[in-house]
């Protein structure tokens, strides 16, 4: 269904794609000639945007698949082919390339404009071109070139007669194999090689393929190349054109995490599609929270139709091949529902201050030094999937968060606490334990051992802070958090001894009573301190700790300490 959905997207008409047999190419320079095929000038199509020069994009005949052999494009190509310039000090090869470019034109010479180009190339005199101001740039960059006739406003490859001839040539099939197309079901001549998919980060720069059979083990019944997966010319063109469009960098359709690229598209749910990216990618603009804005836009819009599907496709590069790592098709309203559950599960005290978190920000809190380069791709895919489907979060996420908290000496940040809460709530929902769901702020009714122990730990830490007004280099949290959350019995014995010491140091006798009461209340809830906490209880421990800590800050009317370090958003 992946190829079908892409073809459907191509045909839906919501984007103006290049028609069959054509593609959009940025061409920086045009060679202008007159009707007789004499050189006139070189036209620069580039426009300066900021510091960069952007070439104008033209609709040109679709590129051929470049291999180590020689194959020329029709009426446009790099300078090597168009003018026979020798860049690799291999005059023989360059000559072949140049003649290949001319040979490609021959079937279309009925067209006057093509005829002019043919004349120009036959009597090519580089001396005239060398005097042009743009010549040096062409030689330096081996850039794309195409042709234009003096006084016309279209390229030679856009002239009417040529287009008719070219379209006719596309429909001519010399092969006699007929097979059903697995995308459309029509009986057709299957293509042998599918057009390349370019710009997938991590894949070969010359392009890669989803459908390719480049080794004998991939083929069956001694079928050649594309005959193993019969696809019509049109279908192959449509899905690759749609994919290449979606993969354009910096558009609203793609997100990249590690070496995985996620594409998403929808035919009608336009406003959801336009803000969908914001849920994943961290915004650089610190003034407003992009996720909150995106959330509001997505939920206000009513532009989705029941028949439409929101598609999410995850791709991973493997040199010349592309593998699919995620494929999800969902009704837009279902997706919105899942997203609202997702943000509800993540909601945590501090939401007003920090706002909703993007997936990237959430996942970064599981990484060493908050760097995305340490992020596991597998984890990303699994969490993304859970977010889209509203299913349970992967166990590996919880392990990653708990490990990070321990390694960072008990730093339970807002995002980490949110993730753990979401993990627990989704797990409980899945198991039908809805009454045990964690709340956003301190829940004094929650009597689960892990949660109460976490609160108790936070109380001890608070007591230490109040006893020692000066800044401590090692706190209870930095020293004991890991131990207390895994083997509470042994660590809490030490903490009990310490807390008597801290109570003695408190100046305010009222606070002493307060603390004694708090600790007594919490101890009553637990009874015996267990020797060991399960991973689920460890999650509750961290959330209980976070809740209690936040409660202290708000009740004492002290400034709420931003426990989200700045380096988290480097």
């Amino acid at each position: 269904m992946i190829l079908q959905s892409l073809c459907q997207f191509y045909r839906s008409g919501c984007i103006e794609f290049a028609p069959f047999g054509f593609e959009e190419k940025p061409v920086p320079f045009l060679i202008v000639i007159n009707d007789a095929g004499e050189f006139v000038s070189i036209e620069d199509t580039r426009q300066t945007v900021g510091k960069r020069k952007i070439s104008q994009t033209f609709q040109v005949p679709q590129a051929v698949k470049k291999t180590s052999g020689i194959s020329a494009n029709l009426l446009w190509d790099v300078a090597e082919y168009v003018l026979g310039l020798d860049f690799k000090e291999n005059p023989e090869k360059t000559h072949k390339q140049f003649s290949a470019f001319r040979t490609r034109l021959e079937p279309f010479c009925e067209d006057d404009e093509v005829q002019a180009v043919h004349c120009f190339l036959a009597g090519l005199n580089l001396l005239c071109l060398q005097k042009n101001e743009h010549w040096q740039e062409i030689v330096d960059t081996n850039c794309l070139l195409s042709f234009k006739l003096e006084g016309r406003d279209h390229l030679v490859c856009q002239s009417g007669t040529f287009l008719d001839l070219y379209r006719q040539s596309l429909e001519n099939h010399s092969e006699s194999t007929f097979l059903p197309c697995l995308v459309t079901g029509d009986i057709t001549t299957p293509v042998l090689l599918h057009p390349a998919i370019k710009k997938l980060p991590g894949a070969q720069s010359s392009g890669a393929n989803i459908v390719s059979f480049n080794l004998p083990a991939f083929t069956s019944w001694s079928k050649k190349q594309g005959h193993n997966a019969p696809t019509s010319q049109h279908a192959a063109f449509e899905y690759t054109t749609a994919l290449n469009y979606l993969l354009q960098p910096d558009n609203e359709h793609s997100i990249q995490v590690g070496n995985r690229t996620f594409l998403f598209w929808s035919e009608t749910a336009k406003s959801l599609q336009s803000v969908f990216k914001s849920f994943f990618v961290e915004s650089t603009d610190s003034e407003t929270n992009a996720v909150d804005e995106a959330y509001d836009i997505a939920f206000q819009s009513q532009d989705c139709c029941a028949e439409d599907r929101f598609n999410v496709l995850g791709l991973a590069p493997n040199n010349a091949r592309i593998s699919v790592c995620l494929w999800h098709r969902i009704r837009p309203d279902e997706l919105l529902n899942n997203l609202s559950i997702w943000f509800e599960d993540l909601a945590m005290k501090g939401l007003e201050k920090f706002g909703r978190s993007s997936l990237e920000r959430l996942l970064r809190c599981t990484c060493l030094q908050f760097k995305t380069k340490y992020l596991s791709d597998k984890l990303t895919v699994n969490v993304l999937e859970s977010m889209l489907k509203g299913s349970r979060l992967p166990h590996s996420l919880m392990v990653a968060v708990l490990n990070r908290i321990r390694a960072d000496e008990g730093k339970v940040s807002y995002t980490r606490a949110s993730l753990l809460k979401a993990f627990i709530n989704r797990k409980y929902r899945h198991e039908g334990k809805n009454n045990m769901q964690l709340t956003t702020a301190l829940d004094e009714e929650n009597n689960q051992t892990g949660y109460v122990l976490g609160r108790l730990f936070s109380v001890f830490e608070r007591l230490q802070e109040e006893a020692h007004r000066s800044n401590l280099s090692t706190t209870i949290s930095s020293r004991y958090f890991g131990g207390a959350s895994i083997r509470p019995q042994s660590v809490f014995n030490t903490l009990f001894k310490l807390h008597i010491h801290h109570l003695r140091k408190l100046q305010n006798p009222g606070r002493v009573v307060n603390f004694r009461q708090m600790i007594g209340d919490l101890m009553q809830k637990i009874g015996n301190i267990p020797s060991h906490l399960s991973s689920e209880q460890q999650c509750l421990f961290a959330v209980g700790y976070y809740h209690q800590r936040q409660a202290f800050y708000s009740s004492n009317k002290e400034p709420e300490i931003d426990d989200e370090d700045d380096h988290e958003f480097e």
Partner: protein
Amino acid sequence: MTFCIEVSGEFACFTRPEMRVERVSYDVITPSAARNIYQAILWKPQMAWHIDRIEVLNPIRWMSIRRNEVGSVVSAENVRRAMRRGQGRLQMFVEDERQQRSSLVLRDVSYRIHAHFSLTEKAGSTDNAEKYLGMFLRRARKGQVFKQPYLGCREFAADIELIEPGHELSSSIDETRDLGWMFYDFDYSANPPSPRFFNARMEGGVINIPMAESDEVQG
């Protein structure tokens, strides 16, 4: 007479032909994979299995994995030469041909498959449907198989259970969706065998499979 079996397994990969290298599975079991499971229990040249209906019992879940596979095949020419000479090298060392490839496979699948068989022209005067019917039921009840039935790839073994008439049936998933053009089976009468496709649609978790001769099957 139609037969009904339930097959289930932890993993399954009914590889799409277009994504056969970096594998992506079809959403559900294909008719040819289902036919192979029936054939694992009983098959003779005198009979041909036809899949009538597939019911999807578990929600469709996906998982992405990476596995080691090989990129080459043993050369047929080398085999022929070795046969002529009576000696030669026929082995392939997986260590040298190893490739890491990713697969998007199905998790925790369960299907109820309805099928019937017909006799082919190879059936002689002593063969009749009654005989094979009895053989199939005896074998299926005892759990006998000629080869381990599998879910798309050999490494994903299937558990099978014969469903007797009157047996209480669990319900299929409540999901309706278009599955697109799906591989039906090879037409083995052509040389080389040519693939056939059909437009699969799941209605309330049930996929009705057209007969091989019908117009719905292309190829």
